[in-house]
């Protein structure tokens, strides 16, 4: 990792200019020329942002581009900003031994994202966890229920407006 590029590249244009040959960038550009909304290369990690509607298609393109292993997905609540939720997908390429982060923003008013369980069934528990903790729903998920909290629980604990000690 020491040899990896350490310079920070902020913004889509900087990333496209500095690493046009990167397989993840190429895969996304090959899928849709204007699909990439934003990009960042920071602390040795590449982040690619796409719009909410495109997330499943973009991940499919990444999978075709050699990023074969879904490793992690989660959400970040940027309350009170709008759009509120950030979804981060971490995808690994076993061949390149490299990860890429795909990011999308989702607003609370329309917190439904297409599920990627049809691409990687392993995303099942993660999407359930995001629904449980943040209240973001996934369309097309086979079993959209809470996973860690009890089924009858009210509220989504990892939201920033949910008190740490819970509602009393």
């Amino acid at each position, binding site marked *: 990792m020491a040899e990896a590029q350490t310079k920070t590249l902020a913004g889509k244009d900087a990333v496209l200019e500095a690493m046009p040959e990167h397989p993840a960038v190429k895969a996304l550009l090959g899928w849709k020329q204007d699909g990439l909304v934003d990009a960042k290369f*920071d602390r040795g990690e590449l982040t690619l942002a796409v719009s909410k509607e495109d997330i499943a298609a973009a991940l499919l393109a990444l999978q075709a581009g050699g990023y074969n292993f879904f490793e*992690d997905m989660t959400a*970040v*609540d940027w309350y009170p900003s709008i759009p509120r939720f950030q979804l981060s997908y*971490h995808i690994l390429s076993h061949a390149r031994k490299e990860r890429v982060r795909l990011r999308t923003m989702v607003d609370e008013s329309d917190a439904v994202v297409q599920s990627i369980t049809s691409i*990687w069934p392993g995303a099942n*528990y993660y999407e359930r966890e995001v629904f449980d903790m943040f209240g973001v729903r996934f369309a097309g998920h086979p079993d959209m229920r809470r996973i*860690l909290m009890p089924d009858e629980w009210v509220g989504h604990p990892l939201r920033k407006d*949910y008190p*740490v000690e819970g509602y009393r």
Partner: protein
Amino acid sequence: MPADLVPTPVITAPTAEGSRDQHMVLNMGPQHPSTHGVLRLVLEIDGEIVVRLYPELGYLHTGIEKTCEAKFYQQVVPLTDRVDYLGPLANNLLYCLAVEKLLELEIPEKAQWIRVLLTEVTRLNSHLIWLGTHAMDIGALTVFLYTFREREEILRIFEMVSGQRMMTSYFRIGGLALEPPLGMFDRIRAFIKTFPEKIDEYSNLLTGNPIFYGRLKDVGHLSKEDAIALAVTGPVARASGIDYDVRRDNPYSSYEKFDFKVPVSNDCDVWARYMLRMEEMRQSVRIIEQALDGMPEGGTIRADAPKIVLPDRESMKTQMEALIHHFKIVTEGFAVPAGEVYQVIETGHGTAGYYVVSDGTAKPWRVHMRYPGFCNLQSLERMCKGRLLADVVAVIGSMDIVLGEIDR
């Protein structure tokens, strides 16, 4: 992706209609001894054949990720011990690496080597528990007593290093909490010298045992394609032919300087996972030996970052600067530059990753913990479907689950 990989939703009680009246719904856990904690499995069985299996999680959910958001960065370290409580130092390392990446902090070489040394001892600890409980589930109770004998020595080493047997918190952001105690290296060396014989001893009890072999061989088959689709990592994935180990392929904390083999098997069954973990223990011993032999002489164990790393007691008591830094760090923490990082390491169970998001303040905005046990559990139904109920116990044992890391 084949549709049958997508788990079927909740199992409802069978009705009297149709052929389903042959089926029985069985609750296994959350108090069942072979579920290694509080895992609850809802099984639909046809006689002794598992038709469907559904894991119910959350009985040990403590909201650690939420708690992290209310703490200073350095206060999160003790919380990470409690996640995967069989590999506390690996969690400490993972969290510290993630925050150090955010801070872009350079760690002294000696601290890195001690981190490698102790995480490998932690791996032995984790694998010993796996072996003991796995064999016990199968009915070989003796091995459990033997592995816990060795584990006791590891816990004593942990106690010597950190004052705690299980909740170590020895690694800190920017280095180590304290200089390693006198005699620690000798004690680990003495332990490692006899340990390969102990592995042979377990092996003599189990590997040639026809009952053990019969219960494990060709049970819990998971193909390579399924393992990739279901995000399976660690020894379970390597036993299914996925040749990936973070230590070798994305080295961290100077693992690139160590020479070790990553065992891989294409047999995809419980037996392969057993053999593979036994070999991993031998490789861990090799890494520990190299770490002891090549341990950098002298040098410091803390990064040169007075605003982040606590000063040692001596300078805190004698220098005003150090006292101010100490006071500032303890009372108001330290600000971490805004950004997001995803750091991964190889724990005893597989690829663990922390996704830490900073908004530029002294408290993490979000700490997400990716633990291998959580997603490996998704493959359980795949491995048990159509097999005997008794095999479920063998498969759970082979996955080496720790509910602390699954429910968090």
